[in-house]
Structures are given as C-alpha cells and as structure tokens.
C-alpha cells in the first residue's frame, strides 16, 4: 500500500550555510613577484577558517585585499554579498564596520590612551551603536571581554605585547563586527601568551557568534582554533580540509607544514 502524502514526514532540505566572504580567482603581483595566482576561498557564517602559508606566501596581501587596503590585479571579493571592488569609499566604510581586523603588530595608536584607541572607530560609525551619550561603558565592556578593564587610561607604551594584542582585540570588538580577520594573531608572543590569545579568540567567537578568518603560520594556533583550513602555496589554495585531514596528508608540500 502506498502511503498517502499526508502521512509522510516532509524532511526540509538543509539550507546551505550563509557565505560571509567569497574570494574568486584572486591575483596580485608586485613587479615580477607574483604573490597570489588565482586564490579562491569561502568563509561561512560562524566558522573559524584558518589560512596557513609560509612567510611571504601572500596571506597578509590576501587579507588586505579583503578590506580594500590593497587592490587586487584580478579577481573578485564579496563580503556579505557585496563586491568590494565596486563600492565607493562611503559604502566601503559602512561595510568595514561589520569587519573587525586584528593587525599583526596590534597597530594601537601610540599617541592615544587605551580608551581613545577604542573610541576611535566609534567616531565614524556611531549610528551603528545607536544614541550614545557616554562611550565609557562600551569601552569598558569591550575591555572586560579581554580581561583588561583596568588599562583604560594607560598609554599603549605601558602595555606588554600580549596586553597590546588583547586591547587591539577589544578595539575590533567595539563595533560588534560580524566577521573578524586575524593577521598572525600569535606572532611575536611567548607560547603561554599565545595560548591565552587563542583561548580569547575562541571565547569571543562563542560569545558574539562571529565568523573568523585567521591568517597564521603557527600550527598550534591552527590546531586549536580551526574548523577548516586552507594551505596557501605558490599563491593558490593548495590543500583544504580539517586540521586532522591535512595532518594525515602524504603530500610533501602539505607534510612540510606539520613537520615538527
């Protein structure tokens, strides 16, 4: 007997995850140095994607193209459905308010206090945070999320390397971004501080539900934080998969990344 359609439980087809960043066929050269040679990538909502590559492999160039700090020679970049290359300055600035960027060397403004550093992004994007009469509670909340509320009146020169990285992370959080880009988040830090920063990145992702793109050459960082990894070799995405998949690969170029 054929069951009537009303008795069949209709399985809803699973919706594909939302693509937050889509890079299509990206090329970038500096003279004769061809850094990116057709790089492709997708970052999905809520995921932690690690892009690994040797120093000088074009990871930082790729991430700078993503936020419009560099113009690619060829290729298209979509962030939350909007193509970066077609946006004017105003539209790009609005889109940038949804992207947090943690720079390799923290990039805190030397001449400003920690508070002023955190208030700086709010100057242009105050409408995003609604009517604000006092910015201090927001600054303190962001600093508390990285465990450094007591540094609010200090100057960057008074902070250690790890503290600077945390304050920079708080600055990326101040505008409640949907995507956070991490450029070598653990470089130049001792292993204990590096571990603390990785834990912090995880907790921020859980708390705020951000999508994270992490550029690194630190295998330990990749192991702990990645849900998916891309290996960038010779300007292209050479291998892709989870950490466990890649670590078992027999490809010599992939193996070279994970050799102790």
């Amino acid at each position, binding site marked *: 007997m054929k069951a009537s359609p009303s008795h069949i439980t209709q399985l809803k087809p699973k919706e594909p995850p939302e693509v937050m960043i889509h890079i299509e066929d990206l090329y970038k050269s500096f003279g004769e140095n061809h850094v990116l040679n057709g790089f492709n990538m997708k970052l999905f909502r809520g995921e932690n994607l690690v892009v690994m590559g040797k120093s000088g492999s074009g990871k930082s160039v790729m991430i700078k193209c993503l936020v419009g*700090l560099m113009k690619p020679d060829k290729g298209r970049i979509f962030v939350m459905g909007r193509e970066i290359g077609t946006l004017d300055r105003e539209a790009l600035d609005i889109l*940038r308010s949804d992207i947090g960027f943690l720079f*390799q060397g923290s990039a805190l403004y030397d001449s400003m206090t920690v508070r002023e550093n955190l208030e700086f992004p709010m100057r242009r994007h105050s409408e995003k945070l609604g009517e604000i009469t006092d910015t201090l509670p927001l600054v303190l909340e962001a600093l508390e999320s990285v465990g450094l509320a007591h540094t609010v009146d200090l100057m960057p020169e008074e902070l250690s390397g790890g503290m600077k990285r945390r304050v920079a992370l708080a600055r990326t959080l101040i505008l409640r971004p949907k995507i956070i880009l991490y450029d070598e988040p653990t470089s130049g830090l001792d292993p204990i501080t590096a571990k603390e920063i990785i834990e912090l990145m995880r907790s921020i992702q859980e708390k705020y539900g951000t999508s994270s793109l992490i550029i690194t050459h630190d295998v330990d960082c990749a192991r702990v934080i990645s849900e998916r990894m891309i290996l960038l070799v010779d300007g292209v995405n050479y291998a892709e998969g989870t950490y466990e998949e890649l670590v078992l690969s027999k490809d010599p170029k992939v193996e070279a990344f994970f050799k102790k």
Partner: protein
Amino acid sequence: MNTAKPISAGFRHFFVEIGELSLFAGRFFKETVKPPFEFRELLRQCYHMGNRSLTLVLVTGFIIGLVLTLQSRPTLVEFGAVSWMPDMVGISIVRELGPVITALVCAGRIASGIGAELGSMRVTEQIDAMEVSGTNPFKYLVVTRILATTLMLPLLVILGDAVALYGSALVENFKGDVSFQLYFNRVFDALEYGDLVPATIKSFFFGFAIGLVGCFKGYYSKKGTAGVGLAANTAVVFTSMLLFVIDFIAVFISDIFYEL
C-alpha cells in the same frame, strides 16, 4: 668608470619625486574642501606645532638679533652710519632673516617630527588600522598637519622677528646708549607694508612646504624601521631645499612689484 648612469638615475628619481609630491599636494587640496572636517585634530596639531617650536624659535631669533647687531656694528661705526642700525636690522629681519631662519628651524623640528611620526605609523600599520576603522587617514593625519604648519608658521615668524629685534635693541642699548623706545621707533619708521606683506605671505608658503614634505615623506615611508629614520632625514633635507626655492621665487615676485 661610467658615472653618467647614476647621475641620470638620480635626476630621474628627483623628477619622479617632484611629480609624486605634486600629486600629493593635489590630493591635499581635494581632501581639504571635502567633509567631514577634522577641526578638533586641527586645533590639537596647531597647539602641538606652535607649542613645541616656540622656545626654539624664540631662542634662535634672539641670538640672531644679537649676533647681527654685534657683527654689523664695527662696519657701520667705521662708515659713521651706526644710526642706521635699527633700519638695517629691522628690514633684514622682517624681510628675510626672520622668515627664512624660523622656517629652517621649524623644518628641522616639525618636518622631521612629522616624517618620523607618520613613517612609524605606516610601518606599524596604524595608518591601515585607521583606514579599516572608517576614518580617512589622509584627512585625519595629513590635511590637519599641513594646515597646522601653514597657519602656525606665520605666527612663529612674527614672534621670532619680535624677539630678534629685541635682541638687537638690547645690544644697541648697552653699546650705543640707544633707548628701547627710540630703537623701535626707528625700526617702525623704516618698515613699510611692502616689507611686511610679502614676508607674511612667504611664511604661509614656508609653513605649507614644511607640512607637505614632512607628511609626504612619512606617509609613503617604506623599508621598515630604517625607512622611518630615512623619512625624517629626507624630510628635513628636501624641505630646506624647497624653502630656498620658495624664498627665491617670493623675492623675485616681490621685486617685480617694487619696480612697478
């Protein structure tokens, strides 16, 4: 040894630099009239530039006044023309020495400072961080600094001139028993609008050149930390050279007006 090649390369580099500086100046004018305007930062920069250079300008001006009078005195005495001392010193200081020496002192103090500051911000990715946070770094850092030097230099020149004349009056008071009142009466009698106006206009251009070159060298600083030192150094050399070129053009033009 063939020296033609390095010389031609040097010339080429020089003209490329002039071209880039002109484009930079063009961008400055374009960005200056476009909102949003950074008034708060402009005031902060005016205060910093004026305050940081004031002591140096006053000390230099005072010594120039003293030395010029002491050096000229024997010759004027020999020709029986010592009574012309206030006229000679007043005209030399107001027309030429005051603006040029103040500008050179400020080139060493301000242009190198701006070059090093912006260079270090470029190297440590602070300028990129500013761009990503939605603030136009050219407007915030460059436009405010160039406007501040352009506005503050004429004020510093006026103060430098006043102190130089006071130094000269002091010598005349000690050596020639000339009262301060008589000395300054003679100075003001000798000075005409034709001496004051071109000198003041020239000072605005000097200030503009100091800010422009300092910002240009710092903003496009390359080659890491070594580039920061280079930016500061070349900013002073290039500005000093440019000041003399501007001075020559200014004197040439005002001379044409005198003849008319």
